[in-house]
């Protein structure tokens, strides 16, 4: 792999204002009555050889971002530049050659491999589609990809149902690798696996990235996995990125109330300091009718009038980017000190949520009375 100079080389992937809206149709004439704004203005870069972790809760649009990059779903707006090719403008033929370089691995190791196909056919499919090599060259590539993922060439003659979840995920990774891609979208690749198996696959992904110089978009709802694997992390909520930064920076000094709540909700095994958990009220609203102003405001413990009315602009503090009125005001008060601001935000949210558990105590008292 060639040495990368972040100063001069443009990022391998540049995404600007990406939008993917799905039409909602109703009635006999299937008239469009609205749209699901699954991805609604998403911007990020991934430098060559780096991993961007994309986190957020289910339905926030992570999978749609990943699929939109490869045009497995058609974006409705914005720009995707892959190695300076405008992906959205490519014709079918040039798109095919780009797709060899950009591969995707899905979450479900059970659903993503065709149960009626031998592993050989599953791996060979892409090579044939992209007309890569003769029979013997293809076999060599397949064996190489299997070896890289810790599988023996003997698996070629077997069927998916003969393998465990962890092994299937290795096969899915081998299928992506066989085309020698530069960029992988990993969509929740370890979410369905048990912890001990998960660790094996995480190590494999990390190793492959180093050995092959791969670039990853690593999608997960699990913050601890993302923290471990990613160089940079972007947090999504309702179709938009609300905060992004270098992984260590984001973990140590989160500024957006949603990021703070998300971190606080991840159960930790540090039993000695059972923390004061930040518990958000309510569910994520529907992406067909996102709330006005800041999209997080109906669940945000710190929401003010301005939050309900005005969409918060992006603040960029040396690459640590976020969209939040309160955080941006506090940052100013703290003289631009992110560490201090993070502490202030944490304290404010904890204070705002700690007295919210009481409203129904009257009911429960009644209940314990009639218990006696």
């Amino acid at each position, binding site marked *: 792999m060639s040495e990368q100079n972040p100063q001069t080389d443009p990022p391998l992937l540049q995404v600007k204002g990406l939008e993917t809206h799905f039409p909602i149709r109703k009635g006999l004439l299937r008239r469009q009555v609205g749209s699901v704004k699954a991805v609604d203005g998403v911007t990020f870069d991934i430098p060559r050889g780096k991993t961007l972790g994309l986190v957020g*809760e*289910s339905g926030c649009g992570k999978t749609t971002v990943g699929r939109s990059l490869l045009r497995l779903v058609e974006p409705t707006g914005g720009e995707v530049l892959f190695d300076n090719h405008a992906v959205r403008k490519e014709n079918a033929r040039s798109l095919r050659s780009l797709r060899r370089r950009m591969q995707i691995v899905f979450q479900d190791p059970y659903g993503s491999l065709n149960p009626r196909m031998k592993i050989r056919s599953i791996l060979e499919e892409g090579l044939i589609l992209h007309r890569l090599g003769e029979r013997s060259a293809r076999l060599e590539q397949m064996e190489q990809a299997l070896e890289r993922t810790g599988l023996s060439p003997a698996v070629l003659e077997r069927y998916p149902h003969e393998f*465990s979840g*962890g092994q299937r995920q290795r096969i899915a990774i081998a299928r992506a690798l066989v085309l020698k891609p530069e960029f992988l979208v990993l969509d929740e690749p370890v979410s369905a696996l*048990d*912890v*001990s*198996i*998960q*660790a*094996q696959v*995480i*190590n494999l992904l*990390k*190793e492959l990235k180093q050995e092959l110089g791969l670039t990853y978009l690593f999608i997960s*709802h699990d*913050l*601890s*996995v993302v*923290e*471990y*694997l990613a160089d940079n992390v972007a947090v999504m909520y309702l179709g938009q990125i609300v905060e992004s930064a270098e*992984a*260590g920076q984001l*973990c140590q000094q989160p500024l957006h109330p949603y990021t703070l*709540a*998300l971190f*606080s*909700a*991840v*159960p*930790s*095994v*540090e*039993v*000695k300091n*059972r923390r004061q*958990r*930040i*518990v*958000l*009220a*309510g*569910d*994520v609203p529907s992406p067909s009718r996102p709330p006005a102003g800041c999209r997080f405001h109906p669940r945000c413990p710190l929401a003010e009038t301005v939050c309900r009315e005005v969409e918060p602009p992006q603040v960029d503090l040396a690459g640590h980017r976020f969209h939040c009125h309160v955080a941006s005001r506090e940052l100013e008060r703290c003289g631009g000190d992110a560490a201090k601001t993070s502490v202030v935000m944490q304290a404010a949210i904890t204070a705002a949520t700690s007295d919210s*558990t009481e*409203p*129904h105590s009257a*009911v*429960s008292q*009644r*209940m*314990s009375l009639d*218990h006696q």
Partner: protein
Amino acid sequence: MAAPLLEIKDLVTVFHTSDGRLPAVDGVSLSIERGQTLGLVGESGCGKSVTAMSTLRLVSSPGRIESGSIMFTTEGESIDLVTTPEKQLRQVRGGRIGMIFQEPMTSLNPVFTIGNQIAEAVQLHRKVSRSEARSRALEMLHLVRLADPEQRLDAYPHQLSGGMRQRVMIAIALACEPDLIIADEPTTALDVTIQAQILELLDDLRSRLGTAILLITHDLGVVAETCDDVAVMYAGRIVEQASAVELFSRPLHPYTIGLLQARPNVDARDSGPLETIPGMVPPPQDFPSGCRFHPRCSHAREPQCNVEPPSLREVSPGHFVRCHFAEEINS
């Protein structure tokens, strides 16, 4: 000392299949005190759900409880759930013992409103009128902090989000003021912020109503945050048991230690690859000889581990470990 609320002793539950006799639960003993939360934790396939279903005698054919006892003691009266007549057991299920499962959609009836379903649960175990049952249902929805309970009483399950449905399941489980709730992966299908809501709710209800909880999960973090005591299960057996504080500050079984080290986090990032446990959890037809964990264990030594099954020993007060070398690991 009074008998514990629930005391499972040497439970063996087997499935008779074409693969032979499969002891999915193979000599499990657990006990839960009133108002306490016991976490039963382990990777998938280790026998957690079969343990839970055995406790309510709901194991589906071809499974059956082969031996052991499950003493359930309320108001000074003990019954053995393994031998109690079915008629009496039906009063216990959903009455003195409530149940919550991973996917509420499959346990809720899609054609009835949630108000009806809670009211029905109440009427099954109590002689109350329809309107009393309905107002009890509303009270339950308030208790589990479902938003807009008055409107939601007449909603159907599919009109609710996953988190709301789980609240409804908890409402049903609590409707008869049970002494024990068995919750099998109650938050596994939920997002973390919703999981945090449900765990907080369960903990709050336990401390206010004194309901004991058997919390089954594959997530050690969930156990650490909510449980008083923990039992770690592997291949049909309990391999380690202690208070949560003790277990997480001083894990002694190589499997528990392995599970804890395999958890990724930001601090582990620059210290090389994650520790892994090689191989995978064996199904009952492939349970290894000796210590069932020995093929995956970094401490395993021949000839002890591959021949001699270790017993569950009290290594320090209240801390039980099933490993030949627990003392060595301890020091």
